[in-house]
């Protein structure tokens, strides 16, 4: 049976509970649903921010995420996956990214969701620019990559950003 997988890159907001219901609707083999939502924080590096602007590489972003969704499907007995990543200007409190995984038992759904998020952080072609608030309002800086994210991705055997070195 083909496993339903969906990858979307969009500017618009998404509804994580609606996406989860779409994956489980009408089936009785689903025993576990894990949803992860990444949200824009109101501060970055201890300083208040007005917004994040996410730039992406159209075409490559979809293809790269799809590749890793297929890898998750191959590695764990999951029976449904949806990944949605937003781009454009996002203000604090708004959602940025969501991952939904469905499986018969919880272990696979938890592991696959974590794998996909760790991967997204380091290999999906997205870049966050910070628009500062407060005393430094209007200043823009690019978020720097975190080595802790690389380490998180590498524990799955996925090369982190070191791959190009």
């Amino acid at each position, binding site marked *: 049976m083909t496993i339903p997988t969906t990858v979307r890159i969009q500017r618009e907001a998404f509804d994580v509970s609606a996406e989860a219901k779409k994956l489980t609707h009408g089936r009785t083999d689903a025993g576990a649903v894990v949803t992860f939502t*990444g949200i824009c924080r109101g501060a970055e590096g201890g300083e208040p921010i007005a917004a994040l602007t*996410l*730039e*992406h*590489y159209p*075409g*490559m*972003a979809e*293809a*790269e995420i799809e590749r890793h969704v297929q890898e998750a499907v191959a590695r764990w007995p999951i029976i449904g996956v949806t990944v949605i*990543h937003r781009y454009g200007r996002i203000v604090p409190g708004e959602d*940025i*990214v969501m991952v939904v995984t469905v499986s018969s038992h919880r272990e696979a759904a938890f592991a696959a969701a974590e794998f996909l*998020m760790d991967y*997204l*952080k*380091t*290999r*999906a*072609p*997205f*870049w*966050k*620019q910070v628009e500062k608030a407060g005393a430094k309002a209007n200043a823009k800086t*690019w*978020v*720097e*990559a975190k080595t802790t*994210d690389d380490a998180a991705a590498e524990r799955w055997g996925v090369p982190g*950003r070191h*791959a*190009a*070195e």
Partner: protein
Amino acid sequence: MKLRYFAWVRERIGKPEEDIELPAGVSTVAELIAWLSARGEEYAYAFENPKVIRAAINRTHVKPDSKIAGAGEIAFFPPMTGG
């Protein structure tokens, strides 16, 4: 061959993409970065630390020693910060 730039690489070079004729003697990603760096101040600035630059050929991640022969589109960008 089309070159595409993203995030601060795009900002430093001052354009999102361009078409180039691949010069003779440039056969890897690292050699292309070195050749671009010599094209002007904006390129030198964008590629001042080649170790942090990531590249993709035809929308797939590649390493500096990857061959570029036959590539339709090569992209350069900083380490990714999505999710």
